[in-house]
């Protein structure tokens, strides 16, 4: 499919580019020390940090991937928000931020250094650095591919433009530039997509029209009516819903392990809260972020549901088709923009999309340059240098980070659903990490050796689980390539199919047959995370018990719950108290789950 842009659309896009660069230029004067560049001088108000916190996560994977999932799985996709984000965001704000912010650590790995030891920090810093470059590259790749497909822009040209603009504004304005642009992007997404949803809802015949059309979709896919419009009703068994997960895997895998692993330990988002201007603002950051986060399904999932509903109602004429004849889910947002927006609004919608791609990259680059400079360069390569030296290194690393992302962008092209790929990476690295933080922050007996070897064991468990299992989805794809079909009894699957399927989607440790076959990739990822977390949790406890503590109670003050004085906030108005805000957010999340049960 192609979208023709008018002059007016290019005007809007250029206005946006001008402001992005302009903000970087103005901020340049503020960037005097390393703390300014890497930490925004810890001077950002809570509401800005909050919006940046959520926007840093609202990259390409979110907007395109969630709309794709909305079409593929219906309203069950909202679990990524109401189950897979909100509780963890409340937890990090209320319970964990006092240690992150209070310890004065400049990064999440640095907290690990203060709490445990150097090797734990380095392990986390290295895996994190790889992951950020990877994510940034995926954003860039997705942007270039999409704009090639949609607007006929040259792939290399898109990579060049996005890389140069992101480079310029981060190089000039550091973290502040990234945060400000994330706020800009937040409002662009909201104001750019809201009219899209309104027009789409009108076209589909309102909520009742949508439900009726999605019942057709459910029937076409062999599921009960209402499967696309109920979030929990059909999760009794994995086979009864298109996501292929049952409620336990969903609640534990996504709601607990993956979500807490991401929101509570990923420096990309935590960095936004660390830039806040006070402890209170840092704690409120994720809670403020949780409020729009709860409402985002209306902006990013609903378009997918509308698109697939219209697709079914128009005999498959709404969405473009992929090679095997199924609708191309990743084209949901572009299709909607092209169908419903006239020139003018189209420019605004594409600017919003462009902004979300670029801030997805920028967020990763700022996290990368901080971790590299402080946790790898300063601690291993050249310690004891002046602040000006590290600031200079930060600038150079920004350039290197962008170049590495460009390399990754050219390398990334395997997965059909970007979300699944990121989940896989989080499963390996992030899922066990939350066990380490949980034990580290709330059990003073946890030792450095326990934390490190627990993490290694957890990451290993994720990798082994991945290597031993496969999904039916992957096997079916492999069978399709080999021009054959899957046998009804999956235990009798041929070695050819298994061999073909093994690789990036799992099964690479399987000799004769996969140990377990999940219905879909997502279920495989959720369970990988559950195994990784449990392994890390148990291993950390066991090793901590048999090894000696190396840090005294005094050294751990401010880093561990039982050794840190409680924060008193009774003098603050209720809307500034994290605990009160947290409860309000959770209650609203429960209500939303109940409405769409």
């Amino acid at each position, binding site marked *: 499919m192609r979208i023709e842009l008018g002059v007016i659309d290019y005007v809007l896009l250029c206005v946006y580019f001008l402001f992005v660069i302009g903000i970087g230029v103005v901020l340049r004067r503020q960037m005097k020390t390393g703390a300014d560049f890497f930490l925004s001088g810890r001077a950002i108000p809570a509401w800005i940090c909050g919006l940046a916190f959520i926007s840093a996560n609202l990259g390409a994977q979110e907007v395109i991937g969630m709309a794709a999932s909305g079409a593929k799985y219906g309203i069950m996709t909202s679990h990524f928000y109401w189950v897979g984000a909100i509780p963890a965001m409340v937890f990090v704000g209320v319970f964990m931020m006092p240690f992150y912010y209070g310890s004065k650590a400049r990064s999440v790995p640095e907290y690990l250094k203060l709490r445990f030891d150097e090797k734990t920090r380095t392990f986390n810093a290295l895996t994190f650095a790889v992951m950020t470059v990877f994510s940034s590259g995926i954003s860039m790749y997705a942007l270039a591919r999409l704009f090639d497909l949609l607007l006929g822009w040259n792939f290399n040209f898109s990579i060049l433009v996005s890389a140069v603009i992101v480079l310029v504004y981060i190089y000039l304005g550091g973290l502040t530039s990234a945060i400000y642009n994330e706020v800009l992007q937040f409002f662009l997404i909201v104001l750019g997509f809201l009219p899209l949803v309104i027009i789409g809802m009108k076209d589909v015949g309102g909520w009742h029209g949508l439900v009726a059309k999605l019942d057709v979709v459910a029937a076409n896919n062999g599921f009960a009516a209402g499967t696309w419009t109920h979030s929990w009703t059909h999760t009794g068994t994995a086979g009864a819903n298109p996501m292929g997960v049952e409620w336990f895997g969903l609640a534990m895998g996504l709601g607990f392990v993956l979500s807490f692993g991401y929101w509570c330990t990923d420096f990309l988002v935590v960095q936004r809260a660390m830039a806040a201007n006070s402890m209170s603002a840092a704690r409120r950051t994720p809670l403020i972020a949780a409020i729009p986060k709860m409402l985002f399904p209306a902006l990013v999932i609903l378009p997918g549901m509308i698109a697939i509903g219209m697709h079914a109602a128009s005999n498959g004429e709404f969405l473009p088709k992929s090679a095997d004849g199924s609708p191309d889910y990743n084209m949901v947002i572009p299709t909607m923009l092209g169908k419903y927006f006239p020139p*003018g*609004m189209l420019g*605004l919608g594409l600017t919003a999309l462009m902004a979300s791609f670029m801030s997805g990259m920028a967020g990763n680059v700022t996290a990368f340059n901080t971790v590299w400079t402080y946790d790898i360069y300063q601690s291993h390569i050249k310690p004891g240098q002046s602040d000006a030296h590290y600031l200079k290194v930060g600038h150079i690393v920004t350039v290197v980070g962008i170049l590495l992302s460009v390399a990754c962008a050219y390398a990334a092209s395997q997965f059909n659903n970007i979300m699944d790929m990121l989940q896989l990476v989080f499963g390996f690295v992030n899922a066990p990490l939350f066990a380490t933080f949980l034990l580290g922050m709330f059990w003073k007996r946890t030792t450095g050796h326990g934390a490190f070897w627990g993490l290694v064991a957890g990451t290993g468990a994720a990798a082994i689980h991945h290597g031993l299992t496969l999904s039916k989805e992957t096997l079916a794809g492999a069978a399709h390539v080999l021009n054959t079909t899957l046998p009804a009894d999956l235990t009798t699957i041929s070695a050819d199919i298994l061999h073909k399927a093994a690789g990036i989607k799992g099964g690479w440790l399987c000799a004769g047959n996969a140990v377990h076959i999940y219905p879909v990739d997502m279920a495989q990822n959720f369970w990988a995370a559950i195994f990784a977390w449990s392994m890390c949790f148990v291993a950390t406890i066991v090793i901590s018990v048999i090894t000696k503590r190396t840090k005294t109670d005094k050294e751990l003050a401010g880093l561990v719950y039982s050794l840190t004085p409680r924060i008193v906030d009774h003098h603050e108005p209720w809307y500034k108290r994290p605990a009160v805000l947290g409860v309000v957010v959770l209650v609203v999340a429960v209500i939303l789950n109940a409405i769409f049960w």
Partner: protein
Amino acid sequence: MNLDIRMPMGIMFAVFGVVLVGWGLVSANDPIYQRSLGININLIWGAVLMVFGGTMIFFARKAMKKPL
């Protein structure tokens, strides 16, 4: 002095709003609005963006006058 993000953001959205309203007026009754179900969404949403941008500018100016 620190840059208040509300100012550049307000100006940007106000510019978007003005451009869209202008374009909406010029292109009124154009067949391009069949896409948006006959609604001149450029005109309407341009106005919304102008109001949003104006509000941001208003608060940024208010904060500037009252030093912390």
